[in-house]
């Protein structure tokens, strides 16, 4: 049965290749989907002033509030982050951002803040996670404040990261569908 379906898809592709006008139309269709997704992402970046407006929780350090695979919506358009806020921050020279809660805020007259964070589920604060010698986070280190959450959706991302092959299979299949579906 699977073979039958694959044969059908191949047949569709061959037909498409023969009909250049149809091929062009389907390719444009595919491009439109890709660019729409990109536009939504960039639009969110603009609105939230955050370089990554949606993040996936990768660790259990904020349990039971957030579990591995939850997604968080970030807002970085806030002037100042306050004590108790859940924020996502990035340490210099490290790729993966961290989701934790602000434990301490010290602010001077010029509005310059120094922050210390801690995971709800961790026993100690985050000094050990910061860069060597770094005692405090500053406003620039914060990618955004968590304003909303959606559960489980991030599982897809985690699966795609753990099994890179899955990424190509999924993207390939989606591309194929867009190309071969007639009602476009």
């Amino acid at each position, binding site marked *: 049965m699977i073979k039958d379906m694959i044969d059908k898809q191949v047949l569709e592709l061959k037909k498409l290749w023969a009909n250049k006008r149809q091929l062009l139309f389907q390719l444009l269709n595919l491009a439109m989907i890709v660019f729409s997704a990109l536009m939504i992402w960039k639009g969110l970046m603009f609105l939230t002033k955050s370089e990554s407006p949606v993040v996936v929780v990768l660790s259990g350090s904020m349990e039971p509030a957030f579990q591995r695979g939850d997604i968080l919506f970030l807002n970085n358009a806030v002037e100042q982050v306050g004590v108790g806020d859940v924020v996502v921050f990035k340490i210099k020279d490290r790729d993966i951002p961290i989701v934790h*809660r602000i434990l301490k*805020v010290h602010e001077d007259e010029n509005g310059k803040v*120094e922050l210390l964070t801690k995971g709800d589920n961790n026993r100690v604060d985050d000094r050990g996670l910061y860069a060597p010698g770094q005692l405090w986070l500053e406003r620039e280190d914060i990618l955004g404040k968590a304003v909303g*959450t959606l559960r489980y959706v991030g599982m897809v991302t985690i699966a795609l990261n753990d099994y890179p092959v899955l990424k190509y299979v999924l993207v390939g299949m989606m591309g194929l569908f867009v190309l071969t579906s007639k009602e476009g």
Partner: protein
Amino acid sequence: MHTVWVRLNAVVFFGLTVLLGLSCLAAISKIGHSYSNQPVIHTLEVRDLKSLKSHGGVDRALFSFDLHADFAPTFHWNIKQIFVYVIASYETEQKKVNKVVVHDKIIEATNPDKVLNYKGTFVKYALVDQGDDLRGKDITLQLLWDHMPITGLLYMGEQPLSEASTFTLPEEYQ
């Protein structure tokens, strides 16, 4: 074309759309809930100062406190937990705003007892200054809480500053 693939694609896509729509509805269903449903805070005040010492150039104060508050009203069906925390805020010559969490507690929705009743409880985190400026300072204790939803928006609540209690640390280390 009505192949199995097209149908599967349509069903999965429709299912996801419905789930997303339901999530959005769940998120907006309780907007404004906190306006009429505030926790009942009976007491939050310091009981005993255990010590005020200098540790390698930074001041550290340890104290115990009383807290009695009922958080049952803040819960609704889309709340997974309430993160309750006590902050100590003060002002020093170098820093205009200092806010330090000295205690926190997670009340999960599954926990039937949503009343916090502490009598002379030791702070979870010591009150540590950035410098050596704690002596003789007025410290304000304030209760704050963060609503963590199952899905949807996070929002904060806080005790009005006018109801917060204040105490003064001694002029000398002890």
